[in-house]
């Protein structure tokens, strides 16, 4: 094949179609939303969407990594909840405890991720079952830890990571953007990221190419847990309290965001830009329910419907192979 022909014919990566399609869907949704509600394009509303999207974006990035390598992590919501209660309890209103408290939850998250990763990658347990068990254990531990009551130890300074504004934009959006850039870099530019994609595509071929498949697979769960901790911190700062159920729902929403964004269930294909589009689609839908004054229970139904939609889109792709 001559170099010229190769240059002319450079096909776009097929997985772009997934991500691009989700951005198109988001754009369409935004247009519809702005027609349905005149408040939608209001600056405050848009910033609100951003603030609300930030924790989901961060946790969904980690979820995408796990799905890319062929797994799933349903414990991330529980990790977020645990983060909110531990960080607020340990902080206990003392500004000097902010950094120790944050370090502590990062260590806790890392430990959970390592256990999940070890079980799935080395012991060979099923990812769904393993992380489901982890979710139950973590939730239980959080309950024991707080005795069920919400904890209100967050310092005003800490809350600035979500509520503070830089150039008029909520700080949490910058954190989410930073997480995105970091995630993009490790997935697209490093040996590790390349191995994540490869082992999601074909574990055996990757293994036979001399890659450290077990280690990399395990580290994906570590990454997902750490992203969940960061998401939990942003969430705590936003809601201003630690609650044992603060993060519940995020496990499904993060999975939905990744799938709507075009990441293939089963691994190997997907882009985190698509995941961000998926996150925004979900948040805009929730926002719309509020703006239109619809009963908030409808949010649940919208959530469920969107998840089904995401999975349906994916299965269609799988059958037609496009």
């Amino acid at each position, binding site marked *: *094949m001559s*170099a010229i*022909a*190769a*240059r*002319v*014919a*450079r*096909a776009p*990566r*097929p997985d772009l179609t997934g991500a691009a399609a989700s951005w198109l869907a988001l754009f369409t949704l935004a247009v519809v939303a702005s027609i349905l509600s005149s408040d939608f394009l209001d600056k405050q509303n848009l910033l609100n969407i951003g603030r609300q999207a930030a924790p989901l974006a961060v946790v969904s990035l980690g979820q995408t990594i796990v799905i890319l390598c062929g797994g799933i992590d349903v414990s991330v919501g529980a990790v977020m909840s645990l983060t909110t209660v531990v960080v607020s309890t340990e902080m206990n209103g003392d500004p000097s405890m902010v950094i120790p408290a944050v370090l502590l939850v990062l260590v806790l998250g890392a430990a959970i991720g390592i256990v999940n990763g070890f079980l799935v990658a080395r012991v060979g347990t099923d990812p769904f079952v393993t992380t489901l068990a982890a979710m139950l254990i973590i939730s239980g531990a959080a309950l024991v830890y707080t005795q069920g009551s919400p904890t209100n130890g967050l310092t005003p300074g800490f809350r600035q990571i979500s509520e503070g504004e830089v150039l008029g934009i909520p700080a949490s959006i910058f954190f989410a953007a930073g997480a995105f850039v970091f995630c993009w870099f490790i997935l697209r*530019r*490093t*040996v*590790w990221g*390349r*191995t994540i*994609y*490869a082992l999601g*595509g*074909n574990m*055996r*071929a*990757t*293994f*036979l*190419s*001399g*890659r*450290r498949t077990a280690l990399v697979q395990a580290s994906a769960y570590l990454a997902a847990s750490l992203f969940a901790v960061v998401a939990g911190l942003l969430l705590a700062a936003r809601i201003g309290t630690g609650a044992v159920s603060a993060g519940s729902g995020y496990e499904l929403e993060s999975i939905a965001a990744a799938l709507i964004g075009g990441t293939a269930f089963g691994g*190997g*294909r997907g882009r985190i830009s698509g995941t961000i589009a998926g996150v925004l689609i979900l948040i805009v839908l929730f926002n719309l329910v509020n703006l239109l004054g619809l009963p908030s229970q409808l949010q649940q139904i919208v959530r469920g419907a969107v998840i089904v939609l995401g999975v349906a889109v994916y299965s269609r792709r799988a059958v037609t192979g496009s």
Partner: protein
Amino acid sequence: MILQVKDITKRFGVVRALEGVSLDVGRGEVHALVGENGAGKSTLTRIIGGAERADAGDISFEGSSQALSSPAAALAAGISIVYQHLNLSDELTVAGNLYLGREPRRALRGGVDDKAMRRAVTAWLDRLGAEFPADELVGRLSPSDRQLAEIARGLSHDPKLLIMDEPTASLAPVAAERVFAVLRELTAAGLAVIYITHELAHVFDLADRVTVLKDGRNALSAPIAEVDRGGLIEAMVGRAVEELFPPRTQQPDRAAAPALELRDLTLPGYFESVSFSIAPGEVVGLGGLVGSGRSRVARAIFGDPPERAADPLRGTVLVDGESFRPRGPRSAVKRGIGFVPEDRKAAGLVLGATVADNIALPQLERLASFGVLRRGAERAVAERETEALRIKTPGVDAEVGNLSGGNQQKVVLAKWLARGCRVLILDEPTPGVDVGAKAEIYLLVRKLADEGTAVLLISSDLPELLGLSDRVLVMSRGRIVAELEAEAATEESVMKAAFDGMETAPGLESAA
């Protein structure tokens, strides 16, 4: 004519897979379809079988030009396809898989009962000489047996036109003979067959007519009596391929320390006391029947499956005179061992990834600084290898799964050529590779050997084994039963050793 294909055109983006291709097949005729990798053969079969739609052109089957809009419609009309890329589901049994293919028909013609189905499957498997039962899980079959199961599935539909896309690429020669015999019986009764292959010997054995595709166009169509091997190759490749096998210019230095040495390597249940050594620059062929344990030896050297207490590997492996414990592929790759596994789809390639990604996979560290990939270096390697191996692809960013079969196989080789290795193990390196490309691959292997690489070649393709190897070892039932110098080895002597081994060796029952 049972099938008339006229002026079919098909493009994939900018790739012109087919440009005005025509093909006529008569009842009872075996029509061979040949051409280089990427010539468009599989695309044509997918169009005839309703799995893909042509951009332009007409197809008429049994005089009706009604478009065959789906695989189910084609099947109902009497067209059955044995696809190149194995399509069986690992988790189902052989019978279950064959039954699955039947479902679209069940809807059209009413129920098919389970027992009758199983009987039919068993009958076809018996007729094809399969040595596995219909209720074996497909995932546990060797590539050869899977291929046989796939053929049985194609036949069990009782088609009027059977399209076989490289049915023998991973079929053991003995099994291929049985398949041919069955095909001859069926065509005598009126079955029409389109037979795609890269093995020209099979074309002359089996076909009544032959059509050559080149770059998506008709290059030749003639009764078999009017063409010869040389003419066929020229029509396919566009030039004459004089010598398939490069001459052995250098004598391997057998006095030097062997690059690879095995001493009494034993994996209980699979192979026993395997000892041999390969000098730097030597190509050693490992012949024998499918299931004689050859692939297991190769995988053991490479550390696959990784060492577990449950299956203790005994004996010693030495690389360049130093003892090497095959702990897993990673340590083997680090030690300079490369491995082209026999099943490229399952073990050789990440089909959803790009050509460049696949080629880079065994050497990502080298293409990175501090874990960060140097994209320029990565691309450069991929571009160099695709050019050197003449891999036909729209670019190194193309998805490997969209390449034609032979080009996929070249990508597997490119992975290890790009990395460079001391010892290269090739387990069936050329199934589905066209003659021209085969000659190129052989030249590359020889060049690699001349540069000092030790090559272990496992091949069921006897001409390949004999033409490329400096020395041939024959395995039978998990043991090495003969060692033949290249000059002394013939197809007969290798087969004789393999069969003698079956009778005399006290070895293992069935090693796979």
